C-alpha cells in the first residue's frame, strides 16, 4: 500500500516552502524533520506539555495537534524565525538573566507562549502570567524564574512605551 501524500505550500519564517507530506504528519514533525527547524521540540504528542508551541497565522498553536496539511496556505513562525527577527530579544535576555531555564527543552515553546501574553495583555498580573503559561510544562525551574522573566519583560516594555 502506498501511503497518501499531499503537496502543500506554506510560508515558514517568511520563506515560501513547497513540500510533499503524508497527511498524518504533524506540523511539528514537518518543521523539525522536513525543514530541519529543530528549535521547536516534541514532548507529549497529545497537546498537554506545550513544548511544540509554534505560531500559525500569528496565533500560538500546538504543533502536535495540527497536521502539516492543515497549515497549507498559512504563515508559520518558529523560534528560529522570531529569534532572527529580534522580536523576542528582550524576553530571551530576561530568561537568561533570571535563570528561567535549565535544560531548555520547554524554552522555545515557553517563549512563544509568553510572547502572546506580552502582545495581548501588557498589564498582565503574575496570576495571569501563571494562567497563560499553564499549558507549557517546565520540569526544571519550578516556574518561579519563568514568571519573573516574563514579568520583568512586561514591566520593561510598559516603561518603554511610556518613555516613547
Amino acid at each position: 500500500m502506498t501511503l497518501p501524500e499531499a503537496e502543500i505550500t506554506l510560508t515558514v519564517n517568511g520563506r515560501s516552502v513547497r513540500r510533499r507530506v503524508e497527511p498524518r504528519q504533524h506540523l511539528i514533525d514537518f518543521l523539525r524533520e522536513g525543514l530541519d527547524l529543530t528549535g521547536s521540540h516534541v514532548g507529549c504528542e497529545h497537546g498537554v506539555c506545550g513544548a511544540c508551541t509554534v505560531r500559525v497565522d500569528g496565533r500560538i498553536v500546538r504543533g502536535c495537534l495540527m497536521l502539516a496539511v492543515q497549515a497549507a496556505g498559512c504563515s508559520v513562525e518558529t523560534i528560529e524565525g522570531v529569534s532572527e527577527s529580534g522580536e523576542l530579544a528582550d524576553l530571551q535576555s530576561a530568561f537568561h538573566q533570571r535563570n528561567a531555564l535549565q535544560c531548555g527543552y520547554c524554552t522555545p515553546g515557553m517563549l512563544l507562549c509568553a510572547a502572546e501574553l506580552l502582545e495581548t495583555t501588557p498589564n498582565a498580573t503574575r496570576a495571569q502570567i501563571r494562567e497563560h503559561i499553564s499549558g507549557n510544562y517546565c520540569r526544571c525551574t519550578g516556574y518561579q524564574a519563568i514568571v519573573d522573566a516574563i514579568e520583568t519583560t512586561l514591566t520593561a516594555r510598559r516603561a518603554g512605551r511610556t518613555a516613547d
Partner: protein
Amino acid sequence: MKPSPFDYVRATNLTEALALLERHGEQAQILAGGQTLIATLNMRLSAPDWLIDITRIPGLSGITLTETHLVIGALTTHREIERSALVAQYAPLLGQAAPHIAHAAIRNSGTIGGSIAFADPAAEWPACCVALDARFVIQALSGERRVSARTFFRGLYDTDRAAHEIITAIEIPRERAPRRSVFMELARRHGDYAIVGVALLGRVDQGRLSDVAIGYVGAGATPLLAQGAMAALEGQAADADVLARAKAALAQDLDPSGDLYNSPATKRHLAAVLLERAVKQLLA
C-alpha cells in the same frame, strides 16, 4: 505517538463536505479545530480512513445577532468566544466559561462546534448550552434541522447527530435582559478537565432567585440540567434552608461516575459545594 495513515481532503463548501461524509460514512471524521480529534488520533484511539477538513468552509465561523438569537458559527474558536463583545453582552456565561477550557494555544484552535459534536461530559460548552437552552443547527444534504441542547446529548459521547450530518451553528435565545450567570469548576490544575463544574443562570430581585438554570459539567454521562435543584431555588431567597434543599436535590439530578482520583461520592459532594458557591456569587 503518531497517527495511523489516513487521507485528507479540505472541503471548500458545505455541500462538498456533506457529500464526502455521505460517501465515506463511518470511515470519515470531520476535522474542525482538531484539538481533541488529533490527540485521539495520536493515541490511536481512533483511526479513520479520511479526515474531512471543514475549517476553510466560508460562513461557518463568527458570532452574529438575530432578532431572536445569538448565533455562534460552529467553527468559532474558544478564543473568539472568550473575547467577543456580543457574547459578553448577550451570553456572558460563555465568556465566563471560556478561560476554563484547556490553555491559550488550544483555545486558539479548538471550536465550539467540535466540542458540541464530541460531547465530552467533562467539557464546558455542552453544559453551558444545556443551561442556556441553546439549540444546534444541523445540516445534511437532505436539509437543515434544529435540535435542543437539552435533547441532543444522549449518552457518553453519543449525540443526536448522525454520521452524515454537520453542526453548523449554535443558537442561544436572546433575553430582553440577560440573566446573571456564574461558571465555576474544580480541577487539579488550571486547564485540566474539570472534576466537576457548574453553569448557573438566574435573575435576582430583592434577594429572590428566578429563571434559574443549572448545567453540570462532569456529573454524569452527558452534560446535565439539574432540574431538582433549579426547582428548589426558583422563586426563593437562597437562605440556608433553601440552599440545603437545592443541594439535597442534586442527589437525584446528578449521576457522576468515579475517575482515577475521585469517587462518585466525592464528586457529588464537590458538586454541592460548587452549587452553594455559585449561588452565593450570583447573589453577590
